[in-house]
């Protein structure tokens, strides 16, 4: 067993699960979406990105791309949320809906990552 592979898979799967946890619930209801869960989803997604850097295989490149997409979606969501709560002063229903939908997009990217990871693992076992 390779410890590095464990951490690699751990962070990729954790990014998806946290993302999912934040995403479920009514899309425009702030009570269904925990900001701390969002924070962890973003941090874990960033760590997963760094872990994917440096693998020069074709699969590694696609994995990195999906991770970058997830980061981009989550950061966009964070900016919208932060701007609404701090600058505008009010998190409206529309803002909440767009934050959650951005996170939903990130979740799709993370899902792709996990599928690729599973595909690679199955190929390895043969």
């Amino acid at each position, binding site marked *: 067993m390779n410890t590095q592979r464990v951490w690699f898979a751990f962070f990729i799967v954790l990014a998806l699960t946290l993302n999912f946890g934040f995403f479920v619930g009514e899309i425009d209801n702030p009570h269904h979406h925990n*900001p*701390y869960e969002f*924070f*962890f989803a973003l*941090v874990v997604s*960033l*760590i997963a990105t*760094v*872990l994917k*850097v*440096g693998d*020069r295989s074709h699969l590694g490149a696609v994995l990195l791309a999906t991770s970058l997409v997830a980061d981009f979606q989550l950061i966009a969501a*964070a900016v919208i949320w*932060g701007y609404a*709560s*701090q600058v505008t002063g009010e998190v409206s229903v529309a803002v909440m809906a767009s934050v959650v939908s951005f996170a939903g997009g990130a979740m799709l990217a993370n899902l792709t990552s996990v599928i690729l990871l599973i595909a690679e693992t199955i190929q390895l076992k043969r």
Partner: protein
Amino acid sequence: MSSNHRGRTRIRGAAMWLLLLELRTPLITLIITYSISVLGLVLIPGMTSEGSAYHLSFLDAFYVVSYTATTIGFGETPHPFTSEQKLWMLVVMYSTVISWLYAIGSVLSVISDPAFRRLRAHQRAVSRIASQKLPFWIVCGFGGAGSQLIRFLDQSNIRCVMIDSNQARADVAKLSDLTYELNILVGDVAEPQTLVDAGVQSALCRGVLVLTDQDQVNLTVATNTRILAPRVPVYARSGTDANTRNLRSFDTEVVIDPFRVAARSVTQLIRKPCAFALYHELVDPDLNHIDVVEMPAEGHWVICADGRLADTVVEAFQRDEIPFCLVSNQAPKDKESVTWVQGLGTEARTLRAADIAHAAGILAGTNDDGDNLSILLTAQAENTQLITIARRNKPTSEPVFGHGHFTYVLREGRMIAQEMYARITTPVLHQFLGQLELMPEALVQGIIQKLHARLGDQRPELSHFDLVLDSHNAPGVLPFFHTARTPKLEDLLIDPGFGYPTMPLICLLLVRLNGDLVPFPGDGLLLAEGDRLLFWGAMGSHHRLQFLAQREDLFEAILAERHRVHSR
């Protein structure tokens, strides 16, 4: 095999990846310390100025952590911190600042790593070579010959890519004063990948010039090029006859042996000083004057040399039947027929034994510059009328040899550069030089006198150029072929200016379309379409000739004038 090769090129194109890989740990450390710090600040309750509890927002927390980590330290926002917050801030300060510095330090150490910088420089050079738009030659080895040749070729607007294994020499090459930016690749030339990186397989690669002083390396480069790019010609330096034969066995286009070139130059100087002067004016772009050395009619030569130069020079002198006396520490191969004095030649005693007082000239050709200078100074003291030929080994000794008032200095690098230059610039020049070797000395002397007559009292700088009579280069001349006024060579040399004077030019060689060579063609020779002409004369006059060849009206006027004069 091919996947292996692809893998290597990928690694070579991966300086950025290397940087990212090195930064993995610092980046993860940074993300984790940042996130823990932010989370702590959000969770720990603060106190507003009115005394009510509040929590920092993620934005505020991230803001505070960011300016703390980067040691900017704006202060406590949005309200002064409570004791709990201050305790947490202590943890934040030390952990984030340290992880931040660690990350920055890693970036800097990777960037300033010599291996990383070499990789980057190599990548830049390779991508510049790949994006090159003009034809180029690959020069392997930036020694005396390489640096000289790159400069010579630059004067003819021919570009080069340079490969050298030595970083110090590559730095010197960077400083060379050229009209374009020389692409320099630092790497082992004997490795095929280096040649590929230098663009040997590019359609723009005109040839590979292998100039290192190691025969084995030159041989390897020549074979590698043969296989990697069969159509690319290889010009190689070779230091031994065995290596020359080896190179020729797989059709290396040009093999230049500096020792043989030196021996040929010396005998040519002695037997045919006019041909020697003409030859060197033509093959050396730095030499723009023709100075014929006056050779004493009699007297023997003293040759102070050892090793390979002694062998080749003795062989050449024997072939040309020039009397000589060899001064050498080693006995010559052929003891019976060679007059030999044992010694170094730096002492007057050995030189007297070689009868220096009655000698015509001396060749100081040992492989030590100090010895050579000592030999020549001693010899000049013994006989002031001597013709002196010096061998310069190290390029750094040039100032002494340049100021030494010697008749001729053998410079290995320069000789190789001249030989290769003559073959690269224009094919007609090389054809002419082949003819020159066969020509009687009196004929060459006549040609030099003819040019001097055309130049009159002036002694301008000299140069050569070629002209092809085709639709591209001479549209003004073409219409007159196959007419009653078919142009003669002399018509081409008329200056279209006032009074129709003759241009200060001589035609050295005319090559017919079918390959026939006419050396020193007479002025009355009829020209034909497709003729290739090699001209030699005052520098700058080629502009006038090329202009004339473009203009049908001017050429018509010249032909009319010529016929008027003739019919009168």
